[in-house]
C-alpha cells in the first residue's frame, strides 16, 4: 500500500531541502539526489512486500484449515470419545483429547502462577536493578525462554519421571509396582510449568512496573509495611497483567507436543485420566498421530483437519483474549501515569 504512496511522499520531503539554498550537498552521507529516488522506492516496496507475504502465509494456513476443517466440526465430534477406532471418520471424537489437554494446562497454571508471580515481585519490588545477582536471574529467565521444547521433554523424563517419580515410589510404595515413576499427567504439567515460567514472569513484571511509584509511596507513608503495600496495593492493580501472563502461558503450552511426548501423553487410552498418575490423550499429539500414523491419510483427513481446527481455535481464542486484556491494561496505565 505504502509502496504506492512512497514516491509522492519522497517528493514532499525533498522539496524543502532543495528550496533551502544555503544547504550544500556533500558530507559523509549524501541523502539528496536530483532525480526520482529509486532506492527508496524499491526499499519501501520490498519491505512492504515482505510484510504482505507474511500476512499471506498466515491467511493461507488459517484459510486452509478453516475451509477443510469447518464442515466436519460438530457437537458430536467434540463431545464423544474415540469409541474403539480413532481412525474411523464417522465415529471418532476428540473429547478425551480436549479433557487431557485442558487438565494438563490447568494443572500447569496452578504450578507456574505462584512461582512466576513471586519472582516478578522480587524483581520489581525488592531487587536492586544494578546487582549482579539480579542480572543473573534475568539472564536465566531469558535463557529459559529460549530452551528448545524437546530439551524440556528430556528434562521432564530425566528429572520428574526418572528421578522424583522413582524416589516417590521407593519411599511410599514398598512393592515393585511403579506408580509415579512413569509418564503421567502430573509430570507433563510440571514440565510445561518450567517451560512457561518466563512467560508468566515477564508479563507480571511488566504490569508491576506500570503501577505508579506514587501509589507505593503513599501506602508506605501511611505506615503500611512493605509486604502490606505489595499485598494490598500493588498486587490488586497487577491482576489483569498476571492474567495476561497466565493466558499467554496457557496458549503456548496448549499447542506444545514435544515436552509431553515422554512425560505423559498417550497414543491411545480407553478411559479419561482419573488421577494425577494416569497418562492422557492430547489434542496436539493427536494431530501428530493422525498426520503420521494413520493407516489411510486420505480417508482420515476430515478428522485431522477438524482436530487441527479445534486446537487452533483454542490457542487463538486464548491469544486474542490476552492481546485485548494487555491492550486495556497498557491504556489504563498510560492514563494513570
Amino acid at each position, binding site marked *: 500500500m*505504502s509502496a504506492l504512496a512512497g514516491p509522492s511522499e519522497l517528493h514532499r*520531503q525533498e522539496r524543502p*531541502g532543495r528550496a533551502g539554498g544555503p*544547504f550544500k550537498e556533500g558530507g559523509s552521507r549524501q*541523502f539528496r539526489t536530483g532525480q526520482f*529516488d529509486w532506492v*527508496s522506492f524499491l526499499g*519501501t516496496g520490498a*519491505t*512492504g*512486500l515482505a*510484510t504482505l507475504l*507474511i*500476512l499471506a*502465509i498466515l491467511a493461507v*494456513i488459517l484459510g486452509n*484449515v478453516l475451509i477443510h476443517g469447518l464442515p466436519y466440526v460438530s457437537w458430536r465430534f467434540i463431545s464423544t470419545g474415540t469409541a474403539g477406532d480413532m481412525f474411523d471418520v464417522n465415529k471418532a471424537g476428540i473429547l478425551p483429547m480436549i479433557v487431557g489437554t485442558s487438565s494438563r494446562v490447568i494443572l500447569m497454571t496452578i504450578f507456574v502462577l*505462584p*512461582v512466576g508471580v513471586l*519472582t516478578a*515481585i*522480587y524483581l520489581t519490588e525488592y531487587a536492586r536493578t544494578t546487582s549482579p545477582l539480579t542480572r*543473573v536471574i534475568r*539472564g536465566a*529467565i*531469558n*535463557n*529459559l*525462554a*529460549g*530452551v*528448545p*521444547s*524437546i*530439551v524440556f*521433554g*528430556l*528434562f521432564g523424563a530425566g528429572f520428574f519421571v*526418572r528421578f522424583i517419580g522413582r524416589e516417590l515410589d521407593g519411599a511410599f510404595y514398598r512393592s515393585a509396582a511403579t506408580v509415579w515413576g512413569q509418564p503421567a499427567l502430573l509430570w507433563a504439567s510440571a514440565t510445561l510449568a518450567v517451560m512457561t*515460567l*518466563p512467560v508468566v514472569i515477564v508479563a507480571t513484571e511488566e504490569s508491576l512496573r506500570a503501577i505508579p*511509584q506514587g501509589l507505593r*509511596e503513599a501506602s508506605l507513608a501511611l505506615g503500611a*509495611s*512493605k*509486604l502490606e503495600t505489595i499485598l494490598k496495593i500493588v498486587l490488586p492493580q497487577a491482576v489483569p497483567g498476571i492474567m495476561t501472563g497466565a493466558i499467554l502461558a496457557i496458549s503456548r503450552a496448549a*499447542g*506444545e*507436543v*514435544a515436552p509431553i511426548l515422554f512425560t505423559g501423553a498417550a497414543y491411545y487410552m480407553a478411559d479419561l485420566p482419573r488421577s494425577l498418575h494416569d497418562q492422557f490423550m492430547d489434542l496436539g499429539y493427536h*494431530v*501428530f498421530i493422525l*498426520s*503420521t500414523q494413520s493407516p489411510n491419510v486420505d480417508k482420515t483427513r476430515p478428522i*485431522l483437519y477438524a482436530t*487441527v481446527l479445534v*486446537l*487452533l481455535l483454542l*490457542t487463538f481464542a486464548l491469544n486474542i483474549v490476552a*492481546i485485548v486484556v494487555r491492550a486495556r491494561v497498557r491504556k489504563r496505565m498510560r492514563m494513570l501515569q
Partner: protein
Amino acid sequence: MGLRRGHRAKPLEWMAEKFIFLVSLSAILMIFLIFIFIGREALPVVFGKMNTALLQKVIPVSQMDKMTELQLCDYLGLTTEQFKSMDHETLKMLMELKVETTKTSSENKDASINTAQWRYLLGPYQWSGYSRPEYIWQPVSEVPKYNIVPLIVGSLKITLVALLFSVPMALGAAIYVSQLARPRVREIGKPLIELLAGIPSVVLGFFALIVMASALQSIFGSQSRLNALCAGLALGFSVIPVVFSIAEDALTSVPRSYVQAALALGASQWKAAWQVVLPAALPGVFAAVALGFGRAIGETMIVLMASGNASLLSWSMFDSTRTITATIAAELGEVVFGSAHYRILFLIGVLVFLVTFLTNLAADLVMHRLKGSIEGKK
C-alpha cells in the same frame, strides 16, 4: 524503593521477604537442573563407560553361582531393579541366551566393536559390507551405529534453509512496520504477524506434511516428497515471528530524534530507516537473528513431521533429512532405559541445549548492551 523503614521489619515480614527471594532463584535453579539431569543420563557415554560390543568374554552358565550380584548385572546389562524382579531361572535363561547370541554374532566382523565410543560417534568407519568409510546413524541393527554427524548436518541444513527464507522477510517486515508504515497499518500488522507465533508447531508440521509437501514436489520435482526444503520452509514460518518481534522492538526503541534529524537533513523515510535507524539498532537485529537460530535448531515437531527423517549425510535440499531433535523425539519413546542408545539420545539433547544456551546468552548480552547504549544517548 527509596524509602527507608523507620522500624525493624517484623519476623513474619522478614520471613516472607526471604521466601520471595528464594522463589525468585527458581529460574536459575531450573537451568542448573536441566543441565544436571540431562547431563547425568549422558555421562556414561561421555566418559566411554558404555559397551555395545556384541562379542564379549563369554561366561559359561555353570559359573553363574560363583558371580556376585554386581558382576551378573554388569554381564547381562541389567539394572539392579530389573535384577531384583527376576528369579534364578530367568537369569539362567538370559545367560544361555548370551552364549547363543555370541555364537551367532561371532560371524560378523564388526561384532567386537564398542560403537558407543567417541571415535565411532564422530568419525567415519568402514563397516563390513561397505566399500568406504561412512558416517552412519543406524541405532537399531545388529551392530548399532551411532554416528551423530549426519544428524548434525541435517539440523544445520534445515536451519540454514529456514533462516535464509525467514530472516530477510522478518527483518523487512520489521523495518516496514516500525519505520515506514502508517500508524493504522502498524497497529493492525504487528499483532497479526505476532499471531503467527500462536500457531502451534505441530500445526505448522501438519500443514507442511499435508499441504506444502505435495505442492513443493510438483514445483521442484524432487524425488522424496518430504525433504529439507519442505521442513525448512515450514520451520521458517515459526522463526518469522521470533525474529520479527525482537527486531521490531529494537528498531522502535531507537529514539525518534534520530529519524527526525535524518528527515530534516532531507533524507527520505526509507533512507532514514535504512541508514540511520537500522545501524543504531544493529545489536538488536543481531540478537533477533541469534534467537531465531536458536528457535530453528531446537524446533522438533515441524522437522519430525516434514523432513522425511532419513539419516543421510547430504547437503542437498531435496534429500530426506533427519535432525537431532527429530531423532530424540522419534526414538526416545522406544529405547531401553539405560542402554547406550538411550544415553546417546540424551547426549545429543545436551548438544542442542548447549548450542541454544550459548546463542541465547550471546543474544542476551548484546541486547543488554544495546539497551544501555540507547538509554545513554537519550
